[in-house]
């Protein structure tokens, strides 16, 4: 170093940088996996409780419920042992044991992340009769209004998802429309300032209804009696 130059710390070699990043990365991975495994049973228990409560929220009049899985051969069968990834629905029954409706889980991409919802389906009305957001990371103050905005949730008190005569598809596509322009029972009145989140709900609900409503129409006899 020549006279007059300020002392400069020598640059670190490749190995120390590599060692630090990989070492810290491995340790962090271990901590995250341990935390995940340690909290998983409790989180699953909490989610199951929240789901059970949500079933009664989206199916007004239901006092008990049973879980069913869709069989590839057609019809529903009671699901007694929980299996991950199994397509399932939750049938809700009134005090006399009559089928009130079916609660269905659905998910779709929102503005920030995947939005998970539970929606209630009335077999007799062929309509959505309730919706509850189970999980979302939408923008606080804007997109997250899909969870609790009373006017928005009013859309799902009776949203038409009726089927065509052959029972294979929805008669009308579920669509989120600009706030204040809803004119049909299958449209969702969006929230101003949360258009993308509102559309995401419309889109995931439409996809889920298209998949489940035909199955429920064809196999609803197996859901009528509480197992």
């Amino acid at each position: 170093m020549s006279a007059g130059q300020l002392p400069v710390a020598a640059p670190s070699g490749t190995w120390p940088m590599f060692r630090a990043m990989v070492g810290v990365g491995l340790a962090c991975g271990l901590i995250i996996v341990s935390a995940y495994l340690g909290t998983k049973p409790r989180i699953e228990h909490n989610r199951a409780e929240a789901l059970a409560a949500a079933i009664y929220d989206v199916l007004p009049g239901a006092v008990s419920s049973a879980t069913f899985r869709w069989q590839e051969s057609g019809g529903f069968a009671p699901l007694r042992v929980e299996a991950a990834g199994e397509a399932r629905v939750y049938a809700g029954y009134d005090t006399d044991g009559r089928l009130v409706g079916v609660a269905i889980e659905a998910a779709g991409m929102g503005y920030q992340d995947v939005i998970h919802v539970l929606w209630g389906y009335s077999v007799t009305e062929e309509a959505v009769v309730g919706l509850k957001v189970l999980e979302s990371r939408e923008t606080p103050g804007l997109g997250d209004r899909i969870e609790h905005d009373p006017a928005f949730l009013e859309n799902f008190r009776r949203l038409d998802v009726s089927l065509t005569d052959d029972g294979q598809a929805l008669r009308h596509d579920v669509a989120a429309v600009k706030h204040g322009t809803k004119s049909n029972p299958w449209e969702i009145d969006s929230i101003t300032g949360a258009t993308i989140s509102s559309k995401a709900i419309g889109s995931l609900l439409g996809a889920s209804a298209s998949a489940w409503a035909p199955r429920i129409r064809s196999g609803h006899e197996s859901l009528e009696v509480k197992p």
Partner: protein
Amino acid sequence: MSGHSTPSTTDEFLKGLWRENPVFVQVLGMCPTLAVTNTARNALAMGLATLFVLVSSNLVVSALRRFIPKEVRIATFILVIATFVTVVDYVIQAISLDLHKALGAFIALIVVNCVILGRAEAFASKNGIRASVADGLGMGLGFAFALMCLGVVREILGSGTLFGFPVLPGRFQEWVMMILPSGGFFTLAGWLLLFNWRRQRNAVREEAS
């Protein structure tokens, strides 16, 4: 260093609580301060989550300070902070899904809370473990205290409750604005006014004496 006394561990702890409070003095971490203090419960939970991340990251960064080359220090600090935020995220979900839902995206956003990276870079990477933990505890408790100051005022005036229990007479008309974002700004402004007024008054008194 000659002529410069080294602060004690107690000093490191106490400075964050009051003299260098991250919210009221340094005005850092404004995003959660304004966003999740609409109830005392949310404010307390966010304060405790940040406290945990701050203490843990300070501890790890201080312990590894000689092992981490300066070129990769910020990336490594963020990795450490993000790890503890993920742990906190799981723990909050295990405690209460409702609380997790109420705090929403702000749990993940603890990663970018400048109080945490600021303390890791400015303090923990240059000091021993004991002093760094004391610094993290002081700053974390100071942050939690500030959030509680806002949360308590906003919940009482905005909902008439404190931790969900009614504290104001039934005839009290809630100031709904206080639990909305604008209420956060007004409340923060009120507390900053109070803090600055006290500091100026104390400075004048010290000068006079």
